[in-house]
C-alpha cells in the first residue's frame, strides 16, 4: 500500500524539462507486448503505486492504484463473493491492473461479461505535461466529458500514466460447469455461434486440438438444466482448464519465442487459410495462430474476416506488430497522442513506430 503519485509526477516533470523519454513499467510481466521498448528511454516504475483506495461491495465498484497486482484485487473481491468478470490474464504474480487496462487484456468470459475496458468507470491519469487528471468517476453511468478512461484501453501507455482505476465488479457465479466434446475446426464456428445465440447461461466457448469447450455459469438450477439439454461431457477439471486459457498457460501457448498471432475477427468468419495451429476463443471472435507468416500478408486475411491481426508475442518486434491504420485514423491518433503527450515522452514507438 503506497501512494507514490507525487514521485511519479516529479519524474514526468523532470523528463519533460530534460527532454527525456520514459518507458512505463508496472509489474513488468507484459514486456513482451508491443514493439521493442525504446533503448534511449528511462523507466517510470508504477509498480510501487499500490493499494485498494476504495471498495464498497454493495456499489459493485472498486477503486485501486494502478500498480496493484491483479491477485490482490481478486483476493479482496473473493472475500465478498465478487470478481472481475473480464477474467484478466495473469502473466505471473506481478501482473497489475494498470498494465491490464493499458493492454486491454481480458479472458475467456469477454464476449459475455465484457472486457477490462468495458468495466472501467474512471481513471486518474498523469499526462505528458505532468498534470494529474481525473476522468470518469466511480458510478456506472457518467457521460460528462469524453470517455478518456476507456480511450486508454489498448493504447499501451502512449497517452499517459494511468495511476488509479475505478471499475465495475460483479458477483461471482453461484455455479459453473464445462461441457467438452470432439469437433472439427470446420464445424466449430457455426456450433459455438449457434450456442451463443441461445438465451442460456454460457460464459466461455473455445476450441483447441479437435475439442470444443463450453462453460456455463450462473444460478445452479439454470446451469444444470442447460447442461442436461446440450451435448458434451461434463469436464472434471473445468475450472483449471479455463484458468490455463485465461493466463495463457495452456500448452498451445508454450514456447514463448515462436511467433504467436492474434486475430480479432467476426466470430462467424471462415478461418483464414494458413498453415499452422489454431486456438479459437471467444466463440470465434479471438483466434490465436501459431505458424509462419508476415504481418503484411496476414492483414488482408484478417480484414476479409472482418477484423484485425497483431503479433501478440515473439517474432520480430522491431517492425510493426499491430494491424496497420488507415491514413485518416493515423492522423487522428497522432493528434490525440500529441494532445496528451505533446513532447512524446511516454512509451515512444511502443504501439506503432509512428506514435
Amino acid at each position: 500500500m503506497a501512494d507514490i503519485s507525487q514521485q511519479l509526477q516529479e519524474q514526468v516533470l523532470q523528463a519533460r524539462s530534460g527532454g527525456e523519454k520514459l518507458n512505463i513499467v508496472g509489474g513488468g510481466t507484459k514486456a513482451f507486448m508491443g514493439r521493442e521498448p525504446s533503448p534511449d528511454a528511462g523507466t517510470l516504475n508504477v509498480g510501487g503505486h499500490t493499494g485498494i483506495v476504495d471498495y464498497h461491495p454493495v456499489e459493485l465498484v472498486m477503486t485501486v492504484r494502478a500498480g496493484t497486482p491483479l491477485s490482490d484485487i481478486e483476493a479482496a473481491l473473493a472475500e465478498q463473493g465478487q470478481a472481475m468478470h473480464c477474467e484478466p490474464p495473469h502473466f505471473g504474480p506481478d501482473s497489475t491492473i494498470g498494465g491490464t487496462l493499458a493492454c486491454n487484456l481480458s479472458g475467456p468470459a469477454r464476449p459475455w461479461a465484457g472486457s477490462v475496458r468495458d468495466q472501467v468507470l474512471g481513471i486518474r491519469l498523469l499526462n505528458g505535461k505532468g498534470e494529474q487528471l481525473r476522468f470518469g468517476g466511480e458510478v456506472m453511468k457518467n457521460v460528462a466529458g469524453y470517455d478518456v478512461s476507456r480511450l486508454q484501453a489498448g493504447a499501451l501507455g502512449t497517452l499517459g500514466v494511468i495511476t488509479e482505476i475505478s471499475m465495475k465488479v460483479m458477483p461471482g457465479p453461484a455455479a459453473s460447469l464445462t461441457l467438452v466434446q470432439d469437433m472439427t475446426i470446420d464445424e466449430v464456428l457455426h456450433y459455438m455461434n449457434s450456442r451463443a445465440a441461445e438465451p442460456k447461461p454460457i460464459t466461455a466457448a473455445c476450441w483447441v486440438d479437435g475439442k470444443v469447450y463450453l462453460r456455463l455459469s450462473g444460478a445452479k438450477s439454470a446451469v444444470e438444466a442447460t447442461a442436461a439439454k446440450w451435448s458434451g461431457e461434463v469436464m472434471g477439471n473445468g475450472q483449471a482448464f479455463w484458468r490455463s486459457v485465461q493466463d495463457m498457460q495452456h500448452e498451445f501457448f508454450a514456447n514463448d519465442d515462436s511467433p504467436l498471432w492474434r486475430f480479432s475477427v467476426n466470430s462467424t468468419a471462415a478461418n483464414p487459410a494458413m498453415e499452422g495451429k489454431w486456438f479459437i476463443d471467444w466463440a470465434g471472435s479471438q483466434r490465436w495462430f501459431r505458424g509462419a507468416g508476415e504481418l503484411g500478408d496476414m492483414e488482408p486475411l484478417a480484414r476479409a474476416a472482418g477484423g484485425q491481426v497483431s503479433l501478440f508475442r515473439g517474432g520480430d518486434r522491431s517492425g510493426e506488430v499491430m494491424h496497420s491504420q488507415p491514413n485518416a485514423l493515423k492522423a487522428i491518433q497522432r493528434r490525440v497522442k500529441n494532445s496528451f503527450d505533446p513532447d512524446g515522452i511516454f512509451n515512444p514507438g511502443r504501439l506503432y513506430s509512428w506514435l
Partner: protein
Amino acid sequence: MTTKPKISKAELADQFRTFVDADFVITDDETMKPYECDGMSMYCEMPLLVVLPETVTQVQRIMRICHEYGVPVVARGAGTGLSAGAMPNKEGVVLSLAKFNRILHIDPLARTANLQPGVRNLAISEEAAQYGLYYGPDPSSQIACTIGGNVAENSGGVHCLKYGLTVHNILSVEMVTAEGDVVTVGSDGLDGCGMDLLALLTGSEGLLGIVTEVKIRLLPKPEVAQVVMAGFDSVQKAGDAVGGIISHGIIPAGLEMMDGYAIVAADDFAGAGYPREAKALLLCEVDGTEEEVHEHIAEAEAVFRKLGATSVRTSQSEQERALLWLGRKSAFPAVGRISPDYYCMDGTIPRRHIAFVLAEMEKMSEEFGLRVANVFHAGDGNLHPLILFDANVPGEFERTEAFGASILKMCVDVGGCITGEHGVGVEKIRQMAIQFSDQELEQFHDVKAAFDPAGILNPGKGVPALKFCQEYRSLEYKQHKHEHTEAAHG
C-alpha cells in the same frame, strides 16, 4: 473556436443544392422551426439552414464545404435529446440524418446488425425479434430516438446494470470527420489494435464526427422476465433493499425506484396498481432461463420482505409485467399532468447515498419553493429528479434551473457526476466546472481539436470555455460564502 463564417446563407444553400435534392436544403423560417430545439425545449435557436443528405458522399461534401468556410455543423437524429445537444447554432447548419433510416443487415448467427444512424432504437429490437434477438440499451425515448443519437449520447436505459450502455453494445461506427474523410472505427472483432477511439466517440455529443453507420451487437432474448414490485414506508429502507439484492449476488435486469410523489402520479396515469401509501417503490426485474428466474425471484421476494417491504407483488404474466412497467415508463408524462411544466434532471450518485441525497433534495425543495418528484435507476445510481414548475410564472424557470444546479452539485459532492445519460449539451455546460478542473477541461478541448482542428462540429456544447468556468466557480464560491455567512448570523 469558430469565427464568423466566410460564406452567406444563400451561397451555402446554393452549393448544397448542387448535390442535395433542393427540397431538402431548408432555408425558410417556417420549415426550419421544428429544428430550433431538441427534447430540451427551454433552449432554442434558429439555424442558418437545415440540410438532409441521403448518402455518405453527400455528408462528406457538406462537411468539406463547411470545413472550408468555417461553418458550424450540428448533427441531429430524432431530436429527443434532453440536454440541448442538438440545439442549432445560429450561424451554422443543422445536418439531419433523418433520411439514413435503414436497417442495412442483420446477421442472426453473429448476432450483429448494421444500421444507418437514423434507425429508431426500438425498431432494431422489433426487427431482430424474428431471430430471437434484441438490442440491449433501451432509453425511455426508445420509440423515437435513433441509434446515431444513442452513440452520440452513450445512451443507457433501465437495463444498464446488467446489459451495459451503448458503448458496451457497439462494434464499430463509420464516421465522416470534420474534414470530410470517411473512417471506420472499430471492427467486427471485439478488441482491436490501438487506442480505443470507439469509446472516445461514444458519448461525444457530435463534437468529434458525424456517424453515418453503426454496427451493433444483439443479445439473445431471455426466455423469461418477471418483475417484483416492493413498497416501502421509507426511502432509506428501499435504498437498503437495493443494496440487499445486490449483496445477495443477484444482478437484476432492471432495478427502479420511485418516491411518493412519483408513485401516486404514475398510478393515477397508468392504473398500474402501485401501493399509493408507500414512500418508496422498487421495481426489480429478473430475466434469464426459467430456472434462473424462478430461483432469483424467490430470493428477491425474501430479501424485500426481510428488509421491511410493506407490500410485495410479483408479475404472474407478461401482461402484468407490462402493466407494472407502464407506470414507471409513463412517470414523466404522469408527472407532467400534475404540473404545467417539469424539468428532468440526470445526476448519478453512489447508491449508498440515496437516502441522504433524497432528504437533502426535500430540503432544497422547500428552500426553492418548488416541488420535486423522483424516479431513479436505482441499480446504477442514476437519479432523475423532476422539478415541477410553471414557465408562465416570471422567474420560476430561473429558480428551477438554480434548484437543478444545486442538485447536480450535490451529486458531485457525494462522489457522483452531473449527468448519467442525458449528456452535457448546453444545459449542463456550466456544471462541468464543478466536476472537472481547468486542466481536465483543457485536455478535453485538446482532444476535440485532434478530431476537429477548426472547431466546426457542434461548437459551444459539451465542454465549457475555461474563462466561463472561472466566472461560474467564483459565483458559486460567493454564493457559498453568502450562505455560510447567513447561517453564521442565523
